[in-house]
């Protein structure tokens, strides 16, 4: 293999890894938003998931336990969000922002003693024979299990929303909660489930960062990825396939930026750090200008509180 091909393969592999946490978080938010709930607390839930997964891995020595624990932690904080916004009918935007601030603070506090603690993170699978194939092997068969899980979940969510009756009900609740209530669907219960799924996915995204991507715990290690995931959902006009595209675009430009620096080009590191955020938003804005498509896919009841007796 020539060194150029080797570099390219390395960049593509790293792109998948950089994009995966965004796929998880954005998928969770997509389902939450499709049910009509806007949860701006992804960043906070990711941090809580990251620190919970990390601590659980340190304590048990098993990164899989860490993953499970991170999802549980994410679900738990999303339940708090659900209780506030769905039961107590607080403002979803304000509550989501508060959740992010809460998550940043709580994770920093809980994780204080774990900064710099070394762990054995989740290892890539080594598929025999297939993994040895040049180029294709490292590209397709030598990833960690969560990369495959993210793709499977993406397909599952796309299928669930488009093909199943439960997915249809979820979309209906997000489209018009009054109508869904009038024909007898439990709007609040469905929204709780969607919010909890979003929390579990954010927790998983956080765990990917602290157990696979880095793997270590540092304060505020999500570095705004929660917000990017949120933007991805909107700019992808609530379609799973476009979320994947956006996530990998973001991951790819992050990695290319690192390689540019490593190759010794003179460029401000701050500028390079900005680039993936800018490029992702730019591209997604450009491909989602069709107003009709947005109306068809956007949940019409997004962010609106629902009270059954009103």
């Amino acid at each position, binding site marked *: 293999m020539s060194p150029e091909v080797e570099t390219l393969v390395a960049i593509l592999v790293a792109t998948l890894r950089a994009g995966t946490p965004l796929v998880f978080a954005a998928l969770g938010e997509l389902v939450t938003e499709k049910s009509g709930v806007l949860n701006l607390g992804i960043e906070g839930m990711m941090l809580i998931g990251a620190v919970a997964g990390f601590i659980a891995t340190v304590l048990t020595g098993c990164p899989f336990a860490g993953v499970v624990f991170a999802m549980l932690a994410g679900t738990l904080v999303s339940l708090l969000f659900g209780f506030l916004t769905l039961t107590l009918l607080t403002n979803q935007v304000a509550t989501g922002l508060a959740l992010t601030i809460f998550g940043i603070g709580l994770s920093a506090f809980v994780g204080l003693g774990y900064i710099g603690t070394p762990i054995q993170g989740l290892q890539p699978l080594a598929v025999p024979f297939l993994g040895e194939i040049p180029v294709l092997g490292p590209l397709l068969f030598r990833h960690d299990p969560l990369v495959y899980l993210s793709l499977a979940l993406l397909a599952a969510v796309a299928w669930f929303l488009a093909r199943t009756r439960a997915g249809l009900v979820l979309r209906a609740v997000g489209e*018009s909660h009054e109508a869904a209530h009038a*024909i007898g669907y439990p709007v609040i219960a469905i929204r709780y489930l969607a919010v909890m799924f979003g929390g579990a996915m954010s927790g998983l995204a956080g765990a990917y960062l602290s157990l696979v991507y880095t793997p270590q715990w540092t304060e505020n290690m999500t570095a705004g990825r929660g917000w990017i995931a949120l933007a991805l959902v909107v700019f992808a006009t609530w379609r799973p396939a476009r979320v994947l595209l956006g996530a990998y675009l973001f991951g790819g430009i992050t990695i290319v930026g690192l390689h540019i620096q490593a190759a010794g080009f003179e460029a401000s590191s701050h500028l390079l750090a900005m680039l993936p955020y800018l490029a992702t938003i730019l591209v997604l804005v450009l491909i989602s200008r069709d107003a*009709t498509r947005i109306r068809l896919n956007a949940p*019409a009841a997004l962010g609106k509180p629902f009270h059954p007796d009103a």
Partner: protein
Amino acid sequence: MTDPMPPAPDSTVAAPPRLELRGITKRYPGVLANEGIDLRVAPGEIHALLGENGAGKSTLVKIIYGVVKADAGEMLWQGAPLGSHTPAQARHLGIGMVFQHFNLFDTLTVAENIALCIEGGGDLKALAGRIAEVSGRYGLPIDPLRHVHGLSVGERQRVEIVRCLLQDPKLLIMDEPTSVLTPLEVEKLFETLRRLAGEGCSILYISHKLDEIRALCQSATVLRGGRVSADCDPREETPKSLAEMMIGRELPVCRHREPPEDGAERLALDGLSLAAEDPFGTDLRDIRLTVRAGEIVGIAGVAGNGQNALLAALSGERRAPPGQVRLGGRPAGHLGPRARRARGLAFVPEERLGRGAVPGMTLADNALLTGYQKGMVRHGLVRFERTRAYAQEVVDAFKVVCGGIGAEARSLSGGNLQKFILGREILLEPALLILAYPTWGVDVGAAAQIRQAVIDLRDRGAGILVVSEELEELFEISDRIAVIGKGRLSPAKRTRDTGVEEVGRWMAGMFAPALDEGPKHVA
């Protein structure tokens, strides 16, 4: 109870009523919506629930369907008492409901919408077949694969009805079903309902339209102020006697006089074309119309045919090329709402709270919003004594029932708020007044008062344009009538030269658009 038994096949034996209500009571904060309501619907009977807006009809049917829980009273289904039930359980029993505001999801297809309501509706292909079969059998053609946002209001109603029919209902509740239909569509709907009743399905038909109830229903329960005011056989009543049961007094009549022949041009639309802002909205195409001083022009049409875009283009909320809209003979298409008001335009929008008035502001402050021209502001400062005096003048002149001019706009009932907003505009003595759905949701008494105020303003020389869905109202007050359909406008005809039949045909889309409306009226 003196309900005559209808000629239904299974009513020869003294079968229990399909539905019986005993002493249903429902209280909302500040309002007693239903008080001790008794009601019986026999199998195969078309039973009317008659009452004004706010009489408690909608609350009662929501209780029957299980959307709202009653505070007291009991409900019997085929003789057996029903505890508290959910809409899903109601559907399971065989109660189907067609809501006034359709419970449809715009971004889903017809089949998906129906699947949401049917148990085991997972297989969309099989369901599409059943939909086609049922819609064919009852003369309700719809395409299962179309998205709901692309359907007309009449088609949407068909979706709701087919959705109910697929569940083999024993009782079908129709809440104000004809308020959105053209006269032709109303006839077809009645045929479907009569056929259903003939097959033994009971129908509870809610309306405030007396002619329809007399044509369709075998018995009627009349509600007034949340209570049953009468039970009767509407076929044996006159519209006058039914109206008296409904509002407790005689219907007020408007005074009228002939308009002058050739007034000055107040508003002219010259080939107004405008793309809809909303992707599901209707584009305006080449609209031509003239409104002169001293006349009322009515625009009829089923909602969703471009009325919103037209009203926005008239008020100035949306701009058009200058020459396409003329006010007082001068181009005004490019002007915003404030500049148009300075030229003598006054506008009463459809939504009272939010566009017509600011809900959380007092009546006095709301009066200031459009009355600022009348010397209420000097050097950029508000002159509160004038503002309050003006608001008080409006309240007095239009008999607005409110807790004083310091009351918040949202605290007023729909009819009183409408009287206030209309009064605020009329007392400005505008050269041109544009009204959107002026008596929508307003009780009969207030509606008559509003119509009289509009006619009086016309008699003082203003040009008036009324956009409404209520044909009776338009025929009562308009000097000329035009119809808007699919974003085009028909020629405006003198009211006395046309009739409900012709306008009904136009509403169904059968007209040649006005090509060039010259200075003379099209006759």
